[in-house]
């Protein structure tokens, strides 16, 4: 059973508008969450993260919100740009794992930003 769920496989938005990507998780032991962005034929690249002790983290146009009680996080991109078109993966990390970080990924969501 998927512990990290991205229930919408795709999203299409107009340039300049807000993109909201959602992610739900089931494991209450997850205490760190990350978003990765992936272009075709490239590896995922780290975008933004949030610790479970926070409910919001912002980096430029990207903001991640965490609702621990609902086991839900979302990535907001404002304003959206055509270059943001990519597949976005939500990932979660359980607590102390002795030096490694065994990320658990969602299935990914394809974002298309139309000019």
């Amino acid at each position, binding site marked *: 059973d998927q512990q990290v769920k991205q229930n919408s496989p795709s999203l299409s938005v107009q340039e300049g508008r807000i993109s909201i990507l959602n992610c739900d998780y089931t494991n209450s032991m997850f205490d760190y969450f990350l978003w990765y962005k992936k272009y075709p034929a490239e*590896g*995922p690249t780290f975008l933004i993260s949030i610790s479970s002790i926070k409910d919001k983290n912002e980096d430029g146009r990207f903001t991640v919100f965490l609702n621990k009680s609902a086991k839900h996080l979302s990535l907001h991109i404002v304003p959206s740009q055509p270059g943001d078109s990519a597949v976005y993966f939500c990932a979660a990390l359980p607590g102390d794992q002795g*030096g*490694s*970080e065994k*990320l658990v*990924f969602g299935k990914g969501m394809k974002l298309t930003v139309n000019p």
Partner: protein
Amino acid sequence: IAGITQAPTSQILAAGRRMTLRCTQDMRHNAMYWYRQDLGLGLRLIHYSNTAGTTGKGEVPDGYSVSRANTDDFPLTLASAVPSQTSVYFCASSPGTSSGPQHFGDGTRLSIL
């Protein structure tokens, strides 16, 4: 440019053959990882290594083996490839001990016929 290098970029392989996917990083990261990406399933961890000389099993380790003889290299071996191992394979590394996000290579696209 510092980062992770994976080879080959792509490969078509007959079922039953042995194959080693190569991964090298020059960031002196302690931890390294192998993932496979399948359509509709996201990325799943195959094996990982906390530090040189140690390895561990991830979510989908069956049919794969790894070794970590030094800090920089983390090869993934398919001893006898099967069609269900057709996938895109990504190698990643991180400083370890929650000190930074994972960095990924550009992947190896492997087709088993």
